[in-house]
């Protein structure tokens, strides 16, 4: 039942927040905080409760599971289940959900109830995506995230919000429909071959089909996930959406929504279409490498703070794509760590960018400079997360990128070498960001208010999480390894990237 609560609590809290807006603007905030806070607490309890036996490979695939028949005629189940991979992503959702509510505390003053309603429904959808093991259910949640996100950007966003929201919606909707086609086709192919019509992921994994069919269906799933990831050249919705969204929107987009793409590849593309994915791997790796370098190069060219951070996501998620399709245990561990660490560090950078915009009313880095004198705490935090984002050892992102590179080298040294140059460019943009905003001569005369208690508390949580993963990655690695073992255990066609 726990798993149902994970989805239902934020869903109900969202509705309650909307209603409560009638009485006070404070109510929706507290209700939202409590709603997603409960989810975080449940996830943490699951995490601690399952350390040890349940995480050992072979002890059964799921840490928790609920499977109820829903629409019998079509073989649709309410099947929620959670393993190490899902658990980590639910934890991330809970944590960043709480922080996203905190980050909106003073920024959002308009239609507060509706805002938190949208926010919590996105989170509820995300948790559904990360726990649904029935493809129909999965698709339901996948679509459920989009509409509130569209409104979140379109209503509470910045200057070009309508354009950005529409672009976001179109990209994800088009790709989502591709996936729907693939899901339905897979359902039918499986039903024809075995006589059982089901949407259950585990059952579908063994579907006998021609390699051509497998290839096309794999592409349908891959397309949807690649847009979300985002993979170059399907990424152009991202800079606009991230830049125009309100802080909480940017945080949820960068830290959580993008992760559904990576999650989908790990959960569906690799297990359902093992051979097709293996033969597609060289292409995916090349596209991942391009993403790493291209995203970093574009980030370096930006002058808008949020746009810069947005492009860094393209670069960092490129590492995830490489790691997933390199397919070695080490590279997959790296990809999962990167999913988490990118969520934490980029979320933090968007919160900081939002804090700066709230105070300075600009995101143009050319109009900042010398802010350290007024706001040393903000400067120190920006420096910390910029360094985390460029992969400083001792912080989580380094472990992630190092594992991806070390695990990919045996598959393709060339890809590894090219991808590693992204690390140089990431240094350039990270340091440039810090320099442009905080160093050099003072620009302008307005005094900048430094981070307050609420903001510092937010930052402290994220700092602690990144340091923890950096110094003790084992806690994440051990949680994820049974899931990875299942992905890698079945025989695969050996692949070699060019």
């Amino acid at each position: 039942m726990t798993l149902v609560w994970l989805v239902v609590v934020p869903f109900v809290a969202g509705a309650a927040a909307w209603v409560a807006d009638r009485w006070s603007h404070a109510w929706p905030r507290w209700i939202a905080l409590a709603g997603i806070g409960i989810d975080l607490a449940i996830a943490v309890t699951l995490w601690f409760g399952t350390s040890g036996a349940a995480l050992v490979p072979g002890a059964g695939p799921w840490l928790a599971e609920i499977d109820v028949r829903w629409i019998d005629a079509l073989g649709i189940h309410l099947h929620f289940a959670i393993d190490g991979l899902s658990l980590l992503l639910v934890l991330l959702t809970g944590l960043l959900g709480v922080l996203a509510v905190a980050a909106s505390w003073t920024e959002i003053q308009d239609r507060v109830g509706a805002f938190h309603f949208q926010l919590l429904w996105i989170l509820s959808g995300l948790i559904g995506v990360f726990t649904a093991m029935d493809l129909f259910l999965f698709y339901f949640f996948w679509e459920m995230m989009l509409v509130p996100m569209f409104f979140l950007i379109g209503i509470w966003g910045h200057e070009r919000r309508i354009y950005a929201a529409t672009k976001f919606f179109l990209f994800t909707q088009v790709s989502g429909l591709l996936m729907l086609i693939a899901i339905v086709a897979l359902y039918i192919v499986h039903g024809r071959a075995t006589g059982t019509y089901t949407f259950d992921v585990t059952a579908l994994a063994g579907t006998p089909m021609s390699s051509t069919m497998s290839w096309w269906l794999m592409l349908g799933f891959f397309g949807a996930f690649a847009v979300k990831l985002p993979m170059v050249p399907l990424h152009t919705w991202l800079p606009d959406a991230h830049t125009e969204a309100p802080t909480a929107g940017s945080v949820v987009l960068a830290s959580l929504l993008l992760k559904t793409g990576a999650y989908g590849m790990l959960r569906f593309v690799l297990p359902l279409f093992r051979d097709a994915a293996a033969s597609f791997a060289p292409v995916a790796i090349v596209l991942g490498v391009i993403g790493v370098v291209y995203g970093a190069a574009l980030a370096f060219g930006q002058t808008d703070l949020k746009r810069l951070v947005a492009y860094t996501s393209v670069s960092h998620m490129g590492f995830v794509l490489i790691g997933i399709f390199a397919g070695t245990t080490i590279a997959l561990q790296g990809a999962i760590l990167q999913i988490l660490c990118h969520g934490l560090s980029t979320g933090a950078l968007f919160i900081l960018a939002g804090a700066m915009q709230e105070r300075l009313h600009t995101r143009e880095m050319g109009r900042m400079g010398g802010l350290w004198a007024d706001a040393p705490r903000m400067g120190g935090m920006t420096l910390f997360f910029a360094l985390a984002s460029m992969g400083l050892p001792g912080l989580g992102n380094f472990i992630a990128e190092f594992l991806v590179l070390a695990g990919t080298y045996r598959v393709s040294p060339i890809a590894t070498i090219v991808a590693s140059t992204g690390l140089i460019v990431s240094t350039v943009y990270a340091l440039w960001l810090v320099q442009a905003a905080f160093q050099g001569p003072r620009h302008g005369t307005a005094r900048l208010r430094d981070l307050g208690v609420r903001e510092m508390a937010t930052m402290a949580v994220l700092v602690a999480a990144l340091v923890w993963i950096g110094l003790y990655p084992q806690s994440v690695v051990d949680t994820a390894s049974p899931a990875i073992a299942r992905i890698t255990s079945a025989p695969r066609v050996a692949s070699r990237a060019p």
Partner: protein
Amino acid sequence: MLILIPLFPFLGFLINASVGRRLPKRVSGALATAALALSFGVALSAVARMLAATPVDGVRAVQDTVYTWIASGSLHVPFTLRVDPLSSVMILVITGIGTLIHLYSTAYMHDETDSEFARYFSYLNLFAAFMLVLVLATTFPVMFVGWEGVGLCSYLLVGFWFTKQTASDAGKKAFIVNRVGDVGFILGMAAIFTTFGTLDFQEVAARVAGMPIEASFGILTLTTLLFFLGATGKSAQIPLYIWLPDAMEGPTPVSALIHAATMVTAGVYLIGRNAVLFSHAPITLEVVAVIGCLTALMAGTIGLVQNDIKRVLAYSTVSQLGYMFLAMGVGAFGAGIFHLYTHAFFKALLFLGSGAVIHALHGEQDMRHMGGLRRELPVTYWTFLMATLAISGVPLFSGFFSKDEILAETFAHGHVVLWAVGLFTAFLTAIYMFRLVYMTFFGERRTPATADAGAHGHAAAGHGHGASGHLHDAPPAMAIALVILAVGAVAAGYVGLPNAVVSGGNRIDAFLEPSFHAPVAAGVDVAAEPAQEESSTSSGVELALMGLSTLVALGGIGVATIFFLQRPDRADAVAARFSGLHRLLEHKYYVDELYGAVIVRPITRLSTTLLWRGVDAGLIDGTVNATGLVVRGWSAVLRRLQTGSVRAYAMSFFVGVVVIVGYYLWQ
């Protein structure tokens, strides 16, 4: 409890970084200094334990495993610290000289506000912690933590006065150039792991020892070249040396600690730590030796014409690091580390001495505005002179022994050309160092201490204003550091007397030797090791070489005396005669300009103009928008377009889905 060695400075960092801004300067400075002094104490006891230990696998060592850092699949990286002969030299230098520099800084940085003072010391302590992790590591990834960490601290400290644009830029440049090298390090790790399945130094050495020496380009050569790329970044060698001269924007004690004594030697240490690996890749060693030698020469020539006192020292550091790489490249690992160790004393002292001068002159760094300071700054002058004699290779001073060993080994290994270039560089070293001493401490003061007016007199010209105003020599905290380092600059070399003079006199070589071998117990036939070429030259030849070095050093001093003490106008005349060459050197061979034109600007243009506005906004979005227009056109035909494209899209896809699903159900 080896973890205490880096832990003390790390705690110092945490305290000063969190509550330091509220502490008075006395407290935060004392705290930071005491943290490193404690670490020095622990280091001493650890070295004592190491010396008393029974050799395991042929080497004395103590080690502690703190915990398992990363374990994933076949990758296993424990966080282990280890003191063996090689790392013992390093930790003593870092904590010992580091403590002195901390002490010196308490006086040097005294004009900063409380919060800036605390920020400075928190960075300095953090640096020491990372540097200690770097040298105590037993695996590549743990070393890399220290390796990147010191780069970070270097960035923070070079850009310490970041409201100044040049300082902020210099810090950034240092970090970026370092990261170029670090990518080499990371790829080297990936290659090592893929080849050997381990990232442990000793395990790698044991496996490599069983392999034949790689005569042609192969995996060992590739790996070692990647690591050497990392080394050129950290240790400021061609082609990545360009950040170090700019790094002089940082406070002077930082230059002494990071950019002279410790961090910049990390690349040399990296090769020493992996001596077995590098010995099996002779092609790489050749590259290392040639690059080291060229860097030494190039930096030495630039040092001849610079007028900023710290920049001369910076190029001198680049040049001396080149000597160390020359030693590593010819396989004389002991000699390289020996020079690293003596250099730490005299170069730290030179920087601290220049800091005392700058401090006395309230920030003046141009030697053309100095002169005659030996009377007013006697402590600074005498200690500085000791260090200058040491670096110039004057017999009986520390630098003589270590530099001479490098040249002798280079000659003995048959690299006669490299030896000749090294010898010529030694000649240049003596010239530029004594030029610096003469311009700074001799002659008359060329500008009043208080005013900059008329300060732009010609180089070394005797005209200008007479000495005026009373200058203060180094205050006690600074003077103590200077004097102790001066003793080191004179005496540190006596652990490595040439065997040709005193039989068995080169104790440091014998002490370090076991660190450069694969663990014996690994079941590897010792004979398979690359034969340790004991100096094949007779002691007669060695004595002759030594005499030659002495003559060269004295010759250099003589040339400097003639041109920069007795007849400064002659130096100007020579500079005027060869004005093209002079300009070339003054502009540092235009390398920065070259990099700017070939690398920095094209990439900037590529990323903003071509990729962003061209590909991203133009090509990709353009394609998408065009698709949108086509759809919109179709929709218009179908009269579906009523409220904008969202609905049109959704509708068209819905239809599409229905059609496809229907098709399958029909079949």
